[in-house]
């Protein structure tokens, strides 16, 4: 279980998170929605410790993440970055198998390569992509390689920052199914950020909406349509008129 308690973060004068309270249960798929620039990416980077929050507490299974052994903690996580963040000096398969080629999860090279190719297949990429370099791929292909890297070591907790952005509708469907499958079949905990409402409905058990630095609303996906919150309604229906200002 991941718990964020009153987490705040500012960059210089700019207050991004103003006391986030969020709980993600083990084996649950949480989807975070919210306007562009509201701090969704910052929120998950805080959980991973890539960004240090100014105040508040983050607990993993009841233990403060800042006091835990970093390596053991990170070994449980997988992360898909919004921009892919592929290592451009390494070919695709070594990106995917990065964790399997060094450190505690090290496997023989041929085996690691085989796993990488299998993960690439799961995100809809053919084996011949394996030996290309990230710069030779399209944006959507890079995103899927990032996804394959996030799931390669089969972590228990996976963060997906906009997994379907930049993908065609069919590929988006494949990825939605994959994320759902990872949660239901492998029992992983997933936190997904997305702007795509059909993704939300396909992936989420629970939904949380971030607005003005706080969790505006959170609840099961089935209650999202009847939340009674004008902010949530405006967001899920994509209306220009409403309490959320269009200029941010």
């Amino acid at each position, binding site marked *: 279980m991941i718990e964020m308690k009153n987490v705040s973060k500012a960059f210089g004068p700019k207050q991004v998170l103003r006391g986030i309270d969020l709980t993600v249960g083990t084996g649950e798929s949480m989807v975070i929605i919210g306007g562009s620039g509201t701090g969704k990416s910052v929120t998950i*980077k805080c959980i*991973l*410790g*890539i960004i240090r929050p100014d105040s508040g507490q983050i607990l993993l299974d009841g233990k403060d993440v800042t006091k835990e052994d970093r*390596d053991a903690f*990170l*070994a449980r*996580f*997988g*992360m898909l*970055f919004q*921009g892919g*963040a*592929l*290592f*451009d*000096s390494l070919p695709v398969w070594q990106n995917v198998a*990065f*964790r399997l080629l*060094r*450190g*505690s999860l090290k496997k023989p090279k041929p085996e690691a390569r085989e796993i990488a190719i299998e993960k690439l297949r799961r995100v809809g990429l053919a084996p011949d992509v394996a030996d290309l370099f990230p710069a030779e791929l399209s944006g959507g292909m890079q995103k899927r390689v990032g996804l394959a*890297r996030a799931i390669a070591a089969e972590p228990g907790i996976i963060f997906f920052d906009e997994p379907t952005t930049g993908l065609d509708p069919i590929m988006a469907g494949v990825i939605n199914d994959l994320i759902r499958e990872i949660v239901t079949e492998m029992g992983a905990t997933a936190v997904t950020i997305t702007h795509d409402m059909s993704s939300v409905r396909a992936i989420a058990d629970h939904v949380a909406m971030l607005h003005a630095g706080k969790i505006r609303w959170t609840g099961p996906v089935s209650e999202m349509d009847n939340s009674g919150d004008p902010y949530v309604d405006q967001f899920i229906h994509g209306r220009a008129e409403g309490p959320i200002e269009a200029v941010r």
Partner: protein
Amino acid sequence: MNPLAALGRGTLDILATIGQIALYAFETVSHLLRPPFYPREFLHQLVAIGWLSLPVVGLTTLFTGGALALQIYAGGARFNAETVVPSIVAIGIARELGPVLAGLMVAGRVAASIAAEIGTMKVTEQIDALTTLSTNPMKYLTVPRVLAATLTMPLLVGIGDAIGIMGGYLVGIWRLDFNAANYMTNTVQFLETWDVVSGLIKAAMFGFIVATMGCFHGMNSGRGAQGVGRATTQAVVSASILILAANYVLTEVFFAA
């Protein structure tokens, strides 16, 4: 703004940066000694930093040795002491010009490319990605580069010294009518081991400075292409100045009477 305040702020900023760099260098050394190690990265950097710098260093010392021979001949002629050319060229190259000029050239080549590479990785979140993949960027990126530069610089400078002395020799026999055999004997006779070794120790220090500055400025790169550009410039400038300062200090330590 009050000009005095601006000056004070600038000074404080510089002091803060010096502190950060010192801490960073210390951290690098501490990671150097603790596993995990990444030998493949290290081998890769040996080639990128050491082997590929050889032409630059060789050409630099070759021409410098030649020019030095001409100057010392001209200066020596004023005291009818032209025969000192071979030994002074050798001593000058081995003690000072070899390590310093090679260091500055490598600073331009290596510090810049390290800062640009790591800075780009930082800006595109690749450094964050490394962390989430349980790989410490200090160990994976910084240590192999710093170690490779520190170990290969003495080798580069050793080869550079030989090429520089050869530059002096070529000018000596072709332009200054030295006897080839005499030039060689004079070079070897007056050059002491410590002349060369002190230069190689300097070189190791300069290699450490170059790679550390490249990594430090890359890791602290600002956002976007502009941030990377600034990091690259700062890496080269700070590496060059630190090399010259360190050269003075080491010379003082080694040769002060």
